[in-house]
């Protein structure tokens, strides 16, 4: 074996290591180039604005999902949490914007606690534990809203979803802020570090004396709270609250964003920026399809291929 061969071997392996990290970004880049060439009015501020606004709720939900997935869990109930949050807004808006927001956040905390306790204390498998609230939560939300779509007209509240701050939509500011907060939590807080250890090896974390159950409950609460923020922002953006529609199927979008962004479903690692990129990629795919007026069949098949390619590139070589 010559040294030459050895060197290329190592270079290849480095490339392999590097690719997963930049797979999503590469895909985004390709799609943007395609659009610049083929889509009219693509390279405009108004377009950027729309894509960011539309991606924001998924980004926010996906952040929470990434944390849950980091603990080797999954949360199917996020869409229902959004619906609950949405259902509560018009109910409490009469007491003021703050009261309404607090009420919907409280709903998030409550759902998160239930999920967390079912997973951490009762020991249910996350997918089943959250399936119960996935089914029941939305039903409850629709019951609360009496099945009625309610228009929301409170200007202060609508500012969150439809207003601008420094010429950038408030919604985008909030999403960006939450990205920073979550990235910060993962990197710089005790909770974040513990979360990764719990996801990486739960028995080990337990024996090391970490409050594993508390961490797990915390993660599910955080995820649900993020989902309820997404829910109330959706209400503010759509300017109406429709518990039967808000956040429908968002759990799959969020999981896709997380996984496409390079976070493994096996836990122990969380890629915050990758998650954001994953959500943006999926948003860009859909936008491209719509702008080219393609039918749903094509959109779905294209999504399938893009997910597979992005995840294939980003897959981790099994080392151990």
């Amino acid at each position, binding site marked *: 074996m010559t040294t030459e061969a050895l060197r290329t071997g190592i270079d290849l392996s480095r490339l392999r290591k590097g690719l997963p990290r930049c797979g999503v970004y590469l895909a985004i880049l390709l799609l943007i180039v395609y659009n610049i060439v083929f889509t009219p009015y693509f390279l405009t501020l108004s*377009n950027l604005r729309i894509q960011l606004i539309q991606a924001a709720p998924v980004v926010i939900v996906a952040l929470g999902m990434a944390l849950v997935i980091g603990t080797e869990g999954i949360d199917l109930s996020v869409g229902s949490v959004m619906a609950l949050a949405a259902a509560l807004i018009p109910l409490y808006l009469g007491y003021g914007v703050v009261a309404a927001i607090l009420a919907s956040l409280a709903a998030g905390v409550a759902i998160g606690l239930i999920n967390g306790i079912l997973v951490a204390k009762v020991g249910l498998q996350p997918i089943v534990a959250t399936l119960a609230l996935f089914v029941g939560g939305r039903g409850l939300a629709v019951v609360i809203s009496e*099945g*009625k779509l309610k228009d929301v007209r409170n200007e202060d509240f609508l500012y969150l979803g439809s207003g601008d701050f420094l010429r950038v939509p408030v919604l985008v500011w909030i999403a960006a802020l939450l990205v920073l907060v979550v990235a910060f939590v993962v990197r710089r807080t005790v909770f974040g570090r513990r979360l990764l250890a719990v996801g990486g090896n739960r028995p080990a974390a337990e024996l090391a004396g970490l409050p594993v159950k508390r961490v797990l409950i915390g993660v599910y609460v955080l995820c649900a709270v993020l989902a309820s923020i997404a829910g109330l922002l959706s209400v503010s953006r*759509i300017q109406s609250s429709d518990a039967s*529609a808000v956040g429908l199927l968002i759990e799959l979008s969020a999981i896709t964003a997380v996984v496409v962004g390079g976070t493994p479903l096996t836990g122990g690692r969380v890629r915050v920026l990758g998650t954001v990129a994953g959500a943006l990629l999926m948003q860009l795919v859909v936008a491209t399809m719509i702008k080219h*007026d393609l039918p749903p069949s094509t959109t779905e098949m294209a999504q399938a291929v893009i997910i597979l390619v992005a995840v294939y590139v980003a897959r981790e070589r099994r080392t151990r």
Partner: protein
Amino acid sequence: KSEDSGATGGSSAAPAATQVVASAPAGSATCTADQYGAAKLDLKTASVGFSQSEKEANPFRIAETQSIKDEAAKLGITKLKTANAASQFNKQISDVEQMIDSGVQLLVIAPLNSDGWDSVFAKAAAKHVPIITIDRKINAAACKDYLTFIGSDFAEQGKRAADAMAKALGNKGEVAILLGAPGNNVTTLRTSGFKDQIAKVAPDIKITFEQTGNFSREDGQKVAEQLLQSNPNINGIYGENDEMALGAITALKGAGKKAGDVKIVSIDGTKGAVQGIVDGWVSAVIESNPRFGPLAFATATTFFTGGPVGQDVVIQDRAYDESNAKTDIGSAY
């Protein structure tokens, strides 16, 4: 406490507009209990089943279910069973089959889908249970597989929407369609009716864009945002239901457009959309009247007392535009 709980619900006082049967063409087919092979009976003491297709989470479905329940109560029908398939077609099939098992003597079905009712027909035929389908038609033989269909003509609704759009645009412009949920025959008919009629009455109107908004406000808004951004020349938006049209209005506002810049026509006749006409955002709303209770039970009564009933009872849908929106908003649901 809700945002507007202080205000009094003035509009709810207005009487709900009942359905009117469009004048049936002479010689159109009818059906009697003898033809169908059903026994005559007294509806009051009969056991009646109502199967709703979608969750009561939008105005149309709420009004529809409520109308059936109210009318049954009014007629003194005590044995009314209701089931809701929550958009799961297989669930609707087993809901209905279960009702037949439990011995209902009349079935009122709001079908989720027009095809796929063979097993239900087989079961109903064995027990001679008459089936009245409302709002959506079932593709089968009337007076044999089922008794009769009561509902709107969706293609006709599409045509009327096309007429309204042509009028609003002065027969010229670029129109986008916000399609309903894919695979739904309401979507299919409202689309084909609209396109056919536009081609006929206003060939200068180009339909440049059609994307599904899944009958939901949020999706309607999202799609409209994308479309307004990349097709700034759009003059008209046809929403296949009111919800999507309302979503489009929010998108228009977000894009800095003013009322009337882009003409909107939609179908359903919900309060929100009719209010949109009053506010100047919407040009016209074609009604699709969900209050099937009185007509359904009247038909059943005629049938069970031996009289002939039409095999295809098409109701007359009203339309709202600037001329009547303010005055008639009370009839919107």
